């Protein structure tokens, strides 16, 4: 019998350690498990529809890609689980502490540093949110830091470059995930006294495990039950949960992707991909 096959994007070498660990975890609990790594989310979504994988560990953007392709084909995509740390994130727009800008509108005509072009947290959501707050994006200069395109910003490098560009005065504002603001402050990339937050996006959700209709529901239930049963207090799985960055798994929800839906509609981010499917 074919094992339950997961697809994941290799945004960092630790991804191998993570899924090797999960394979051991699932196998030991009676769920035959295997995984396939992809270079980019677009390849993963295509492979999902081609039946190569049963479940995809999708970025929020890949979730929308899968969801829209499914709808276009009369099929159905479903988010079955996510990390507690995938829920209710915000991104912030920061400027130099001595900059006069107080809010989104003050960035008119100025340079905005963002992460990779396909990063929800460091590019799509903050730009969309600034636009929604009334900023004329067409009258600004958006400076992208395209680190590892195709990985949808999973790699923090683009955000870090935007932060460094801000300190060097190459951009007037930088778009950063809320948690990375703390990380950059702690590591010295962006000292807390050097920058000021002038805009915060609405809360949004991040990755989820996506399945398509036609998957063996009993196996999906087994997979989900094992995930939700993982306890960070169990030293046997804590290492895996630490690597994957969570304290608890939660059932999937899709209400946290509305802002990103609006952003990709506004910027036409997925048009070419969807047309190619």
């Amino acid at each position: 019998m074919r094992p339950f096959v997961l697809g994941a994007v290799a945004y960092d070498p630790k991804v191998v350690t993570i899924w090797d660990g999960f394979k051991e975890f699932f196998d030991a609990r009676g769920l035959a498990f295997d995984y396939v790594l992809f270079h980019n989310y677009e390849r993963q979504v295509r492979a999902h529809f081609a039946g190569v994988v049963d479940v995809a560990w999708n970025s929020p953007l890949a979730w929308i890609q899968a969801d829209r392709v499914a709808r276009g084909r009369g099929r159905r995509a479903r988010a079955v689980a996510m990390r507690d740390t995938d829920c209710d994130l915000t991104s912030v727009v920061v400027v130099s502490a001595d900059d006069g800008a107080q809010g989104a509108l003050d960035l008119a005509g100025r340079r905005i540093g963002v992460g990779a072009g396909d990063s929800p947290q460091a590019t799509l959501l903050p730009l969309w949110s600034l636009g929604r707050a009334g900023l004329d994006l067409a009258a600004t200069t958006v400076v992208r830091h395209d680190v590892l395109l195709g990985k949808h910003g999973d790699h923090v490098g683009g955000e870090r470059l935007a932060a460094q560009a801000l300190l060097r005065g190459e951009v007037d504002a930088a778009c950063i995930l809320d948690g990375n603001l703390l990380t950059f402050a702690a590591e010295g990339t962006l000292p807390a006294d050097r920058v000021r937050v002038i805009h915060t996006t609405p809360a949004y959700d991040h990755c989820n495990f996506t399945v398509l209709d036609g998957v063996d529901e009993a196996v999906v239930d087994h997979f989900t039950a094992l995930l939700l049963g993982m306890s960070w207090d169990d030293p046997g799985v804590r290492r895996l949960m630490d690597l994957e960055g969570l304290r608890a798994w939660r059932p999937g929800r899709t209400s946290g992707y509305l802002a990103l839906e609006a952003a990709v509609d506004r910027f036409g981010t997925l048009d070419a991909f969807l047309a190619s499917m």
Partner: protein
Amino acid sequence: MSRPPARLDLGALSLARGGHLLLRKALLALPAGGTLEVVGADPELPVHARALARAWGAPFHPHDATVVLGAPVTPEGRWRGAVRSGAPGQVVAEPPATWGLAARGAAVEAGSPAFRFPWSRRDEVWTDEAGRLYLQAAAAQWDPVTAVPWATGFDLPDEVEDAVVQLMTYLVENEVAALLVPARFCAQVHPHFREIVQLLAIQAADEARHIEVFTRRALLRRPAPALSTAGGQASLQTLVEEPDFALASFLTSVLGEGSFLTLLRFLDHHAPDPVTAAVCRLAAQDEARHVAFGVAHLERHARLDPTLRLRLAAAVERRHDALRHTAGLNEEVFDALVVVAAGAWTPDALRRGWDAVVALQEEMDVGRRVRLRRLGFEEADAARLSGLHTRNFM
């Protein structure tokens, strides 16, 4: 009816500049189901509080000017299920591999990796003397540059200087063996036995200093060291390659360094110049500790395991057999000892030197027998085993 939330006022302190410490402490103090209202002057407080709450697994509820957080899902954090690696002042019989590098008595997080330390049993490595010997060693470290009167003038006949250089050449390679043996076991003893690891480390450092000063003395008046012999190296090879901790310390520290202690005191006494005297005296001070450690832990080990003495005896016999076809102490070294003890290139002096070296070997034998007796060997066995000890001294 729900309890009113606890309250934390951060004042002007940012959560990105140390305020997270206050927040975490306040969250951990919450009763089950309790909530914490956080206020402060930093306009970025809600942004940071949200990110921290998410990372800590704490519920987060934004309000206009304040935020409210719930208790983290895993309040005990990494302390949950952690085990104490014994007590600071007490060693256990068999520390688990998963205690790893932890300070003795630390709470070791569950799921910590297992290390492979071949010497993990108290009875095989421990002596209560180790802590005291380590502190003594730490206090007795001398500086090779300043502790020796390198600049003192002296005049030796060429033959005597050559003999000193030959002896230093021999001493250096013996010191290298004496460094490699503790260095190797230092990396193999379970760090739970902290004092043993410390003592082995400082012992290796002692030998490094011995190598330094003997090398300097060798090169003081000559451009290169003298002869290193195949027999000498074969004898030392059996020490360097001995994989068993007890056998290696027995052969190296008790018998080898024990004999060396006598040799270095002899050289201090008969040295023809003040530099040679000083380097040998300084090295001898350290060697006395090395011997004391070897005797102390083997004495304890032999008391707890009566079969140990049989293995020790067998090791001496095995080494003797292995070295039977080598030259033992080479002619060059023996003759150099005679010349150094003579101190002059005259018939009278050479006869005195010869007699002194014969007496030295008897003295070494007496010392070895005394130490063997301390390990519980009968007088006859001690005499026999001492006689089988390598003619290379070390």
